[in-house]
C-alpha cells in the first residue's frame, strides 16, 4: 500500500489544492463548543481533529428542508425543483458517517428510487479522516473502526505531526495528482480506543431485540424522556420526513417542502382522524431503538446504527442508546425465554 505523509502545517495547502478542482465541504468551527460541516471558503478554517458534528453529511443529500416544487394557484400549475449533483469534495468525514450514507443509499434506492437524494449523491469525492473516540462513540461495536476506509476515495489517518494519506480509489488518486507528498514513515496510526461498547454483535442482537419487545426498559427510558425528538433529528441514518405546503402572502402561489421528521415526535405517529398509534414515549423509544437494531437489520443483516453517539451526546436527559441495548442484552441472558 502506498502511504504518503501530510504534515499538519500542510493541511491548509491540501484544502486549497482540492478547492481548485471542486467545491469543498469540511468541518469548521461554528460556535465556541461545536464544529459543523460547511462549504469551505477559507482553507485555514478547516478542522480535521474533532469528535463529531451535530449533523452528518446526510444534510447535503437529504436537506433538513428540501423544496420539492413550486406551485402557482392562478393557473393551477407547478414546477418541480431543479436538483443538482453535489459534485464536491467531502473532506474530513468520519468512517461512521460514511457508513451511514451506505445505509441511506439502500433506503433511498429500494422500491421507488428517491430521485432527489440519488441525484445529489453524484460526483462526490470522499476524503475521510480518523478520530479518537470520545465518551459517546461506539462504532467499534457495530463494526466500523475509526480507520475504516470503505467508501472513501482518500483516507487520512492521524499520526504524530500529521496524517498518513492513503489513496483508496482511482478517483482519489486523480484529485491528489499534482499535490506532492513525501512517503509516509513506517508506523501505525492509533486504531482508537472506544469507551462505550454494545455487549453483542448484530448477528445476536436481532434475537435479543425481538425478545425485548415487552421489556420494562422502554417504560423506564420514557420516565426520563421529554420526547423532544433531538435523537431522531441528529441521527445520520434517520430518513423520515414530513411534507408541508406554504402559500405566499399574496396567495398566488407557494412551495411544497420536505422536512425531517422523527418517530419520537407525537405528530409523526398521528394519522388521519387524530389517532396516535404510538401514544406513549415508551412505545416511541422502543420503535426508535428497534429501527436501528432490529427492523432494518432483519432485512439487511446490518445494524442501522453506526455508533456515532449523536443521539446520546445531544440528549439533554442523558438517555444512552448503548445502555438501552445492553440492558436488553443482559435481561435476555438472564431470561432468554421471555421472547414475545
Amino acid at each position: 500500500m502506498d502511504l504518503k505523509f501530510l504534515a499538519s502545517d500542510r493541511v491548509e495547502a491540501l484544502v486549497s489544492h482540492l478547492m481548485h478542482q471542486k467545491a469543498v465541504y469540511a468541518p469548521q468551527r461554528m460556535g465556541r463548543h461545536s464544529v459543523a460541516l460547511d462549504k469551505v471558503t477559507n482553507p485555514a478554517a478547516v478542522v480535521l481533529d474533532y469528535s463529531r458534528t451535530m449533523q452528518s453529511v446526510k444534510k447535503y443529500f437529504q436537506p433538513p428542508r428540501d423544496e420539492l416544487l413550486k406551485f402557482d394557484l392562478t393557473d393551477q400549475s407547478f414546477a418541480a425543483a431543479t436538483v443538482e449533483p453535489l459534485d464536491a469534495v467531502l473532506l474530513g468525514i468520519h468512517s461512521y458517517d460514511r457508513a451511514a450514507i451506505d445505509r441511506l443509499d439502500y433506503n433511498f434506492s429500494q422500491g421507488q428510487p428517491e430521485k432527489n437524494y440519488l441525484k445529489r449523491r453524484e460526483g462526490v469525492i470522499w476524503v475521510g479522516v480518523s478520530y479518537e473516540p470520545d465518551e459517546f462513540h461506539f462504532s467499534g461495536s457495530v463494526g466500523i473502526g475509526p480507520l475504516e476506509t470503505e467508501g472513501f476515495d482518500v483516507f487520512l489517518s492521524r499520526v504524530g505531526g500529521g496524517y498518513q494519506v492513503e489513496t483508496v480509489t482511482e478517483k482519489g488518486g486523480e484529485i491528489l495528482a499534482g499535490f506532492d507528498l513525501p512517503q509516509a514513515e513506517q508506523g501505525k496510526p492509533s486504531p482508537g480506543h472506544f469507551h462505550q461498547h454494545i455487549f453483542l454483535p448484530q448477528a445476536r442482537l436481532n434475537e435479543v431485540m425481538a425478545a425485548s419487545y415487552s421489556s420494562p426498559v422502554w417504560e423506564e427510558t420514557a420516565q426520563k424522556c421529554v420526547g423532544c425528538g433531538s435523537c431522531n433529528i441528529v441521527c445520520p441514518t434517520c430518513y423520515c420526513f414530513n411534507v408541508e405546503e406554504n402559500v405566499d402572502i399574496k396567495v398566488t402561489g407557494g412551495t411544497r417542502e420536505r422536512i425531517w421528521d422523527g418517530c419520537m415526535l407525537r405528530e409523526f405517529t398521528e394519522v388521519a382522524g387524530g389517532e396516535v398509534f404510538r401514544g406513549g414515549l415508551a412505545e416511541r423509544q422502543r420503535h426508535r431503538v428497534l429501527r436501528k437494531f432490529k427492523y432494518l437489520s432483519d432485512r439487511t443483516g446490518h445494524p442501522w446504527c453506526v455508533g456515532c453517539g449523536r443521539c446520546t451526546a445531544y440528549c439533554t436527559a442523558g438517555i444512552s442508546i448503548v445502555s438501552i441495548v445492553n440492558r436488553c442484552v443482559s435481561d435476555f441472558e438472564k431470561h432468554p425465554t421471555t421472547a414475545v
Partner: protein
Amino acid sequence: MAAKPRVAIFDFTGCEGCELNQLNFENQLLDMLGHVDIVEWREAMDDRPGEYDIAFVEGSLSTPDCIKRINEIRRRAKVLVAVGACAVQGGINSMKNTRPIEEVREEVYGKDKYLFPTLPALPLSSVVKVDVNVRGCPMTQIEFLKVFTALVMGKQPVEPTSAVCVECKLKENECVYERGMICLGPVTRGGCDAQCPSVGQYCTGCRGLVPEPNLKAMEDILVTHGLSVNEAWKRLHLYNSHELEGLKS
C-alpha cells in the same frame, strides 16, 4: 368563506405587543390588507361595531368584564384566533394564579381593591371555543402569516406540536445546554423556527408546553444542569402557570 373576509382585532389583558407585531408586518401589510377588510381594531383605528368572519384576540381574561366581552366577540366571529401567550395559555399574567387572588388584588390596588374586581388570568379557551392559536410572546410573526394565509384560503391551519429542539437541530444551532445555559426548548412548542436559540438566547418557553409534557423529566434535566427544584419550576411557570396550576388540582 367570502371572497374578502371581515377581520376584527381585539385585546384583553396584555401588553399589546402582539398587536404591535401585527402592525410591524411592514413588507406584508399591504398584501394582507388586499385579502381582508379590517372592520374593528382599537390599536389602529376607531372602534366600530360590526359583524366579522375572523377575530384575532390578544390578551388573557382577568376581570368579569373580560368574560362578558369575549363571549360577545365569540358570538359575532365565525373564526376566533387566540394571538400570543396571554390569549393562548394565560401567559405571564397567569403567574398571579399561583397566589390567592385576594392577596394579589390587595398588593396591586391597596385600599382601593374593592373598585377593581379581578379573576385569575385565564386563556381564552377557558371561557370560549378557540379555533386557532398563534403562539409566542410576542406572537410569532411567521406563524401569524401561515395562519392568516390558511384562513384567507378557507383552510384549517396546522398547529405545530413538536418541541423547539427540533427546529434548533434542523438549523444545526449549537445547543444552548452545550454553552452552559439552561433552556426550556425540550418541552416548549416549536413553530418559531427556534428564534431565540438561533441568536444565542435560551428558550423561556413563551409558546407554551408541548402536548402531554413529561414535566418530571424536564425538572430532572433542569436540576442536572444546575437549577434547584424550586428554580426549575419557577422557570416552567413563567409562561405556563395556568396549565401547571391546572395539573396540580
